[in-house]
Every structure is written in structure tokens, then in C-alpha cells.
């Protein structure tokens, strides 16, 4: 009778003899629980030291949502700060978007972290900062485009919160999967300015508050395994408002990539790191918002524009191009109609300027039959 095979031994470099229980998604190493945790922490430590992310004595705000990434980030930062004596003053910073049944519950998880890790917690709300909660916004604009409002407001709210507590740096729980997805999204949207900077481990250095991503090279699956191994409590419900449809496709693609070809995640990040915009391409210049003083490339920052839209009832403001500009384009196209066509129907041309309507119809019918 064939002997049943047990789990393979831990592949840790320290020569551990425990049976392996976890396969690390990043490099496929099979490790036992404690060695996996240590390996994960060493990875983050390496990222922090190689990129000189912090200075001794700095006050660092940890963006905490109560989800897996920020919970793991807070735990790892505290562990490494104690173990390697970074000398950092760590503080938790949460944003209450005002989503009943979602954010109020996740903030309870952050509150638990505050007690367990002994880190001070500051919570800022959208209502206090902008006069609107996400529930109010969704009631006003519906479920379409609400992620645009939430994303813009949260980014600015975190900056304002960090200033409030006197932090000199803000760390967020963006992981490798998030980074890969962002690189892809920026290519798909043609946002070259963001594409150039989105993989930087520290962004916003030109402003007053740099943002760092210590989990940049950690795979999402490893973060979940780390949270489980260390029995961290986190909130894992998806936002109750519909997720951004377009990003959803990119997310699914990145997840499929990770299953079929795991190194594609780090390769996507590597691609983003190697990209820079050609000199001849015009780029937006950074200015100060006329209304609130926040950095922007326009006269008004996006958050002020969105609030203006909400307060005046023009909810498309800052979300999509105005109908006026669309109308102008349509009219311009209409006036050029004759110039655009070839003007000849001799070759059976059925384009807009063809003279013979019957030939037009005939060609259209032929094209329809093709069923491309």
C-alpha cells in the first residue's frame, strides 16, 4: 500500500524542521507559519531600508480603514518599529466616509487595533470636511460615478488628517496587486502623468506630505495569509455601493494573471517603474487650488469642483465632459461632413459624402451582411 505523503518540510533559510503549511505567493516558497510571518516581515523591512522610507523621530500616520491591508500594515509597522528600533511615532488615521452598514462597522475594527497595538487613533469624517457623507452623495447622484467622489475626497481627507496630527509622512496599505492594477488602469485610461509616478514607493515628495507604500512588493494573498497566521482581526466586507465597473475588469485580469503567471504582478510593477514620459509630450503643471489651497493642475482642485457640483445640483461637474463641449464637436463634425467623404460614388463608395443614396444603401446592406 502506498504510503501517504505528508506536507513538505519548511524551506526557510534558517533551517527550520517544521512541516510547511503556507506557499508564499510571491516566490512560491513553502514555509511553516512562524517562518512565513518572519519572511513577510523581513520583506517589508527590506523595502523600508532599501528605499530609506523613514527618518528617525518622524511622526508617521498610518491610513487605517479596518480592511486586511491597513490592518496588516499597522501590525507590521509596529512590529518592525519595535524590532529594528526605527524610532518612529506611529499614529492611526481613519476616514469616515459616512456609509452606514459598511464604514461604521469597519471603524470598529480600527478601534480594536488602537487598543491592541496601543497606537493613537484620529478619525476625520467627510461630513465635517465637505459637508456631505457618501450616503448623501449616493442619494443625490445615484450609484454611478460615486467611486470618483469617494476616491478624490478620501485622498484629500487623509492628507488633511495627517496635517492635523502633525505627521510628516503618510503610509498606506497599497499592495503589489493594487500597484499592478493601477499601472494597467493608467495605461488603459491613457493617464501618462499618473503612469509615470504611480509605482513610486514614495509619492507627493514635491508637496508637504509624502506618502509611502511599504507593502508595495507584498502580494495580496500573502497579506491575507499573514493576517490569518497572526490572527489579526479585520473587516472584509466589500463596499455596499457598486464597485467601479471598469476597474473591476482590470482587477479580474490581474487576479487571473496571478493564477496563470504569478511573476506578471511584479513584472507589471517593474514596467511601471521603467516608464517615463517623452520630453515632447505636454504635461500638466502643479498649481494651488484657488479655493482651498490644495495642490491641483487646474484652477480648482477636483474635490472643490465635485463639492461645487453637489452644492449647485450640477452633479456632472468634475465627473464627465460637459454636454456643451460634446454638442460643439458634433456640430463641427456635421459641418465637415462633405469634406470628410470622398465625394465619389463611382467605386460603390457608401461613405457619408457619396452622391448616390441607393449605392449607399446597397453598400450598407453588404456591410450588415458581413456581421463583423
Amino acid at each position, binding site marked *: 500500500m502506498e504510503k501517504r505523503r505528508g506536507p513538505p518540510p519548511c524551506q526557510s533559510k534558517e533551517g527550520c524542521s517544521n512541516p510547511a503549511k503556507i506557499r508564499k505567493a510571491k516566490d512560491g516558497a513553502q514555509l511553516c507559519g512562524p517562518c512565513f510571518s518572519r519572511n513577510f516581515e523581513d520583506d517589508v523591512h527590506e523595502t523600508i531600508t532599501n528605499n530609506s522610507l523613514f527618518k528617525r523621530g518622524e511622526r508617521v500616520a498610518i491610513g487605517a480603514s479596518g480592511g486586511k491591508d491597513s490592518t496588516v500594515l499597522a501590525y507590521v509597522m509596529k512590529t518592525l518599529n519595535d524590532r529594528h528600533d526605527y524610532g518612529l511615532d506611529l499614529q492611526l488615521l481613519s476616514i469616515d466616509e459616512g456609509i452606514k452598514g459598511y464604514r461604521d462597522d469597519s471603524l470598529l475594527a480600527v478601534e480594536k487595533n488602537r487598543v491592541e497595538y496601543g497606537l493613537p487613533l484620529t478619525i476625520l469624517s467627510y461630513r465635517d470636511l465637505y459637508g456631505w457623507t457618501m450616503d448623501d452623495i449616493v442619494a443625490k447622484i445615484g450609484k454611478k460615478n460615486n467611486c470618483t467622489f469617494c476616491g478624490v475626497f478620501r485622498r484629500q481627507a487623509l492628507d488633511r488628517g495627517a496635517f492635523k496630527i502633525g505627521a510628516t509622512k503618510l503610509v498606506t496599505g497599497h499592495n503589489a496587486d493594487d500597484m499592478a492594477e493601477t499601472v494597467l488602469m493608467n495605461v488603459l485610461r491613457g493617464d501618462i502623468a499618473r503612469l509615470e509616478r504611480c509605482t513610486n514607493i514614495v509619492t507627493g515628495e514635491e508637496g508637504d506630505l509624502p506618502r509611502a507604500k511599504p507593502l508595495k512588493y507584498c502580494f495580496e494573498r500573502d497579506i491575507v495569509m499573514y493576517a490569518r497566521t497572526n490572527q489579526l482581526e479585520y473587516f472584509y466586507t466589500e463596499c455596499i455601493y457598486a464597485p467601479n465597473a471598469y476597474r473591476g475588469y482590470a482587477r479580474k485580469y490581474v487576479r487571473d494573471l496571478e493564477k496563470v503567471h504569478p511573476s*506578471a504582478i511584479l513584472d507589471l510593477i*517593474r514596467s511601471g517603474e521603467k516608464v517615463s514620459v517623452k520630453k515632447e509630450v505636454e504635461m500638466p503643471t502643479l498649481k494651488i487650488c484657488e479655493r482651498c489651497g490644495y495642490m491641483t493642475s487646474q484652477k480648482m482642485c477636483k474635490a472643490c469642483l465635485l463639492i461645487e457640483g453637489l452644492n449647485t445640483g450640477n452633479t456632472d461637474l468634475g465627473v464627465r465632459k460637459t454636454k456643451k463641449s460634446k454638442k460643439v464637436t458634433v456640430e463641427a463634425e456635421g459641418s465637415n461632413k462633405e469634406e470628410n467623404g470622398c465625394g465619389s460614388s463611382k467605386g460603390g463608395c457608401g461613405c457619408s459624402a457619396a452622391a448616390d443614396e441607393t449605392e449607399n444603401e446597397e453598400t450598407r446592406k453588404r456591410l450588415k451582411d458581413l456581421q463583423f
Partner: protein
Amino acid sequence: MLHSNGQKQIQISAQQEKIYKDADARETLIVYDGTPSGAFLLSQIDDALKQITYKRLMVKPTVLVMVSVTDPMEIQLVLDRVKEIKSVFLESVNWITAHIACCMYTESKVFLEDVCNGAELIPEYNDVISSCSIPTYQKELERVLKEKCLQMIANSLSISKCMVPDDADDLGRLAIDQLCLGRGGSLSALVTVLDKRDDFMLIRPLCDVSKKEISIYNHLCGIDEHCIPIAQTKIETKSVQSLTDSFIRTLENEKFYSTINTVLSTASKIHNTNSSKEGSRCLLCFVETADTLCKTCLAIQRACTGDKIGRFVR
């Protein structure tokens, strides 16, 4: 209208990039791979050469029929079909049929007409491809070796320019594949009109034309019948390339029609952060800056059993 647009596209590509400013270097290898895009390119070049006004395309073409099927019977069928097509397009120019296995040649060769050059190297070529155990890298290796083959043939014929029938859909997918393989910095060279290498230039005149446009044009102008199934059809294994294909299809089905255009436009505006350092190029892919092999090509080498890649980089 569509007809004149297609010709215009090739003229614009040639003029904007000043590809033919040197009157002595008008010899160009026109690659015909049997696809609708390949047939479209042939018809466009044929038309452009027949023009008598300033619209005439000033090139001296040599048509290269690129074969990747491996069955001798199928290769013979391709040769027979090429004879027929030759009587329709570019009859007066040189036609060469070569198998992708020509990439295995280590030195310049004399290419004969009316035979499939390099067919004797098919087993050796298959051996290299099958030595790669990871499907994504296997497909990438095929792509890289195809370019190597084009360069080898062009060098043997003392031609420095090569027009390939890659259309917008092919290049959009390639851009995303290359992003996922870590070659993001080289996207501009890989998917735009011009890809200048040391002594070789790849020209992609159809980079702004979609497959759909080409299909409509071919149907209306009766070019459909000049397509040949030259490429090897394989059982699809899951790879980055197959995932990208289904990802783009999903987006198009969901009416995000401009995805390909946006990806290609983005690719044309970026370059490698280290592009100022004019260092040596990767010996396998020729696009990334590296002393010997770039990171992606090193990964391909590691995925191959034995020293099968070594012969290409010595």
C-alpha cells in the same frame, strides 16, 4: 474612401517618420504572413507603387512569405498558393518564401525562389520552442525568434528595412503582454510605426488600422481570397497572451471600443527611464537595454531546459 485611407496611412507613416529620406536605401522587405492584414499590406504596396503622381511610394520591395506551419504537405500548398498570389500582386518584384525556422541560421544565407527556405531546420526550431516549459515564455520566445528570423533574412539580403503587417489589434494586445512581462519601458519601440535597431528597422505601417477595418476593406475589394493559413494553429494553453486576448475581447464586448487606441496612444508617449544611457541592447529581444540579456529574456532562458537559448546570444 476606406481604400484611399489605407494608402494614406502608409504614406503618412513613411513621411512622418522620414523613413525613406535616404535615396540609396529604398530596398524594403515586405512581410506577407497569409493573414488578412498581410494581404491588405500587399495590396496597399501594390497600389502605391502603381501611382504615377507624387503619391507613388518610393520603395524597392522584396516580398517575404513567412511560413510557420511544419507539415511538408501544408508547406507545398503554401508554395502553390504563393504562385497564384504573385500573379495578382507585385508580380515584378522578388518573392522569397522562408520558414520561421530560418532564425536558427547562424550566418548569412543565399535565399532561393520557389522553395521554402529554412524548412530543413524545422525539427531544430521545434526543439528550441518545446524546451520552454512555461506557456507565456514559450509564446514570447516564438515572437522574439520571429523578429530574429526577419533580421537574419534582411541581413542576408542586405536590406535594412522590413515592413510587417501588424495591425492595431495585434499591437494593442502586444503592448499589454509586454507590460505584463516587464518591458513597459520599451513599449514605444515595440508597438509604434518605427522600431530602429542597430542595422535593422522594423516598420509597422498598419499600426493605426484595426482588424475590422482591414476585414471590411478586404471583403469589399475582393482581397479575402488572397489569404493563406500559413501560421501554425496550436491548442490554446492558458498564458498571459491568452488572458490578454480575452481581457480585450471582454472590454470590447462591454462597448469599451477605444481600449486599443488608448493603449497604443499611451505607448507612443512613453519611453524607458534609462533611455538616455545608450548602452548595449539585449542580445535576444534587441529592445531592452542590457549588457547581455534583459530580465525578461533571462527568465525565458531559465524556463528552457538545456542551453537552447545560448546559441542566439553568442
